[in-house]
């Protein structure tokens, strides 16, 4: 015993020589961190490219009350995303996307509570909080499905027609809200984020299943909950940025 403790501190040996975790985190957690770092670059590239294309288009200059959709300028987001389900025609700018933000933050909290319960080896609590997290993820995905559907089909009333064309809703080549790039970025950015949420829900379910089957009790630790938790918080983090740069600015 004495020989192993002295060999670590022997001259010429450092924490990086093996046998210990220099960053104080397990291999799996570290790899999740670096995966998330690379994923952050991907999302940054998407959002920054949105910034490039948006700043290459004219913005709307006039009175916001008189705003109309046009191919000539980039739309004001709060005028595009102003509908909520079941209340057709009600003008509720950004309310629905605010609700989606609320749902995702709440599911992030339930996830962190699941991680906390995992540290305490409390299987019942992990199961409970994982279920809430999965529910939050599914609710978010449903909201996004409705939002996409509404965006694609378009509004049936109000000034919603671009000059000369009677085009409702949006496709990759044309949309009623503004320049074609606007809808393309909407689909790409929220779609890529939505796909991450979907993968997150699948992973969360896998963890939930393993917890119920007692895999982590047998293993002696709940580190998998922590690793997938990191991923789930990252999805929430990305949404914070999408919310700001796509819906608010």
């Amino acid at each position, binding site marked *: 015993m004495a020989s192993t403790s002295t060999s670590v501190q022997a001259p010429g040996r450092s924490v990086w020589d093996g046998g210990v975790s*220099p*960053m*104080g*985190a397990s291999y799996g957690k*570290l790899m999740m*961190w*670096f995966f998330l*770092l690379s994923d*952050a*670059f991907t999302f*940054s*590239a998407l959002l*920054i*490219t949105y*910034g*490039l*294309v948006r*700043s*290459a*288009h*004219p*913005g709307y200059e006039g009175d*916001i009350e008189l705003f109309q959709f046009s191919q000539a300028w980039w739309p*004001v987001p*709060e005028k595009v995303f102003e509908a909520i389900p079941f209340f057709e025609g009600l003008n509720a*700018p*950004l309310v629905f996307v*605010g609700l989606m*933000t*609320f749902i995702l*933050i*709440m599911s*992030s*909290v339930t*996830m*962190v*509570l699941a991680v*906390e*319960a995992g*540290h*305490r*080896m*409390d*299987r019942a*609590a992990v199961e409970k909080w994982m279920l809430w997290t999965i529910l939050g993820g599914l609710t978010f995905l449903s909201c996004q499905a409705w939002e996409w559907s509404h965006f694609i089909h378009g509004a049936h009333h109000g000034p919603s027609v671009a000059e000369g064309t009677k085009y409702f809703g949006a496709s990759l080549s044309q949309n009623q809200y503004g320049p074609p790039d606007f809808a393309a970025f909407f689909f790409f950015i929220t779609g890529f984020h939505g796909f991450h949420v979907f993968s997150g829900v699948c992973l969360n379910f896998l963890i939930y299943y393993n917890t119920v089957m007692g895999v982590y*009790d*047998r*293993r*002696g630790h709940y580190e998998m909950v922590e690793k997938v*938790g*990191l991923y789930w*918080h990252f999805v*929430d*983090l990305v949404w*914070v*940025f999408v*919310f*700001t740069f796509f819906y*608010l*600015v």
Partner: protein
Amino acid sequence: MAHSEEHHTPVTVIPPDKEKIKKLWTVALILLMITVLEFIVAFSVPHQYEATRVTIFILMTIVKAAYIVGEFMHLRHEAKVLIWSILIPMVFVIWMLVAFVYEGMAIFNLRY
């Protein structure tokens, strides 16, 4: 086998630490309050002050991001070398942001 032996080891559940859980809910509350504030700014600061609006939104987003990464993802409590390994590469994102938005404005000036 070691595997089946582990199966019968009873698991000791540690009781929850009320303080710790309360702290997590506080972070959640802060995140929600900032989001509500963003809404208030979005509908109270007129669109003429676009620069002010954007600055406020970006600052609030950074605060939210710091809470999510620092507390929920627990990065604030990790080893220093891990914190810097994650934060320093963000320099590339900032550089890309500045370069691309500058480029976008140059394209705008060429077009219009």
